[in-house]
């Protein structure tokens, strides 16, 4: 196998360009989906009449669809709703919609898991419900769900590979172009893909484990 040829500087550069797109898409998607996910999670936690119900249905539907479908749909259907994004922003939009739904569910779980007594203590001291959310519940839920949220963000990074289906020139897409042009490079390209994704995701997962451990440590110092 021609590893050295496969890893010619030109090919490496091309892979790195793809990696850059992967990272960029992931970056924007992470920011937007965390913000949107928090907003949706809070709306659902609060049980606001009608709004929370509808939000819940929409989130449930999105969470239960394959991301592949959502990516495809975003690229081809959003323009029909008057929002035409290029392939990059379509990918970001699809990731955001999907991962925000997942994150909102995580956060809602996290909020529900904060002991009821915390809300009561806040209310009993005269804080409003919003203040209780802002100062008491949200910081705790955010802290407790951080590891799960990071895991979801790892999933997000891996999921960017699906955007190859709408020809987003990200890492997987570019690797496919290289081995599609010369099939002798198939193994080197899969090795490169595994390497890049693994490095990023594993580093993040170590970080998430570290967070989980420090949190557990703090909580056990009773």
């Amino acid at each position: 196998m021609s590893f050295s040829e496969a890893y010619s500087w030109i090919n490496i550069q091309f892979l790195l360009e793809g990696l850059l797109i992967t990272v960029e898409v992931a970056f924007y998607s992470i920011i937007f989906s965390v913000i949107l996910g928090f907003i949706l999670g809070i709306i659902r936690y609060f049980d606001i009449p009608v709004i929370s119900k509808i939000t819940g249905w929409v989130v449930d539907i999105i969470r239960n669809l394959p991301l592949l479908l959502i990516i495809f749909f975003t690229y081809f259907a959003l323009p029909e709703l008057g929002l035409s994004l290029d392939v990059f922003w379509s990918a970001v939009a699809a990731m955001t919609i999907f991962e925000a739904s997942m994150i909102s569910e995580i956060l809602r779980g996290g909020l529900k898991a904060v002991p009821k007594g915390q809300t009561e203590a806040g209310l009993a001291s005269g804080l409003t419900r919003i203040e209780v959310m802002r100062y008491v519940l949200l910081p705790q839920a955010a802290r407790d769900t951080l590891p799960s949220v990071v895991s979801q963000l790892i999933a997000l990074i891996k999921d960017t590979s699906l955007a190859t289906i709408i020809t987003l020139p990200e890492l997987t897409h570019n690797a496919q172009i290289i081995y599609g042009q010369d099939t002798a490079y198939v193994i080197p390209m899969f090795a490169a893909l595994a390497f890049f994704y693994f490095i990023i995701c594993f580093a993040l997962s170590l970080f998430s484990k570290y967070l989980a451990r420090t949190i557990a440590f703090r909580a056990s110092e009773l």
Partner: protein
Amino acid sequence: MIGLLEQYWPLLLEGFINTLIVSIIALLSSLIIGTIMGMLQLSANKIVRTIVNIYVEFFRNIPLLITVMFFYVVVPMYWMNISGFAAGIIGLTIYTSSFIADNIRAGILTVPAGQMEAALSQGMKQIQVMRYVILPQAIRIVLPPLGNQFINLVKNSSVLAMVTGLDLMYYGDFVAMETFNTFDTYILVGLIYLVITLPLTFATRKLEAKLGVNDN
């Protein structure tokens, strides 16, 4: 959309059934492999632990698509022939089992240490303690996360479409291309996925609520 369904229902039905088959086979095999891996992750033997950890960490942190494509493209090119359908099942199994392993491991660890101690202090063997005391409790704890893994598995099975896996998404593409009606076709396909995943989600949520109440 009704028209689409009327005309293409045999294809979509086949895709639906294949998606179900893939999901069930991959679920069962990843449950078995994942449970074994999860228990081995807690093994006293460091070499075993390391090997299992490498497996789990490696496949968790690589996109499913890459693993599936590997079995579809690379393995047949150099070693043995595997169809898209089989490559999909293998990839899904490996990927999902690495998550299930972690769920099982975490489940075992959430059984309070006192349970292990109580059983040991009555003179039971390690293996008996696992079999009669720890695993039955861990399973209860692990059931909701396993439900979520299954839902993910069903959704993830859509990558088979990219390797001629003959699943629902694959036939959805086919119908969309033949009718040029991308919009309606994908909505229809989405609805069919929801037929599988929504009930699973509600069941999992019920289970979560039920087990949560018992915990108090």
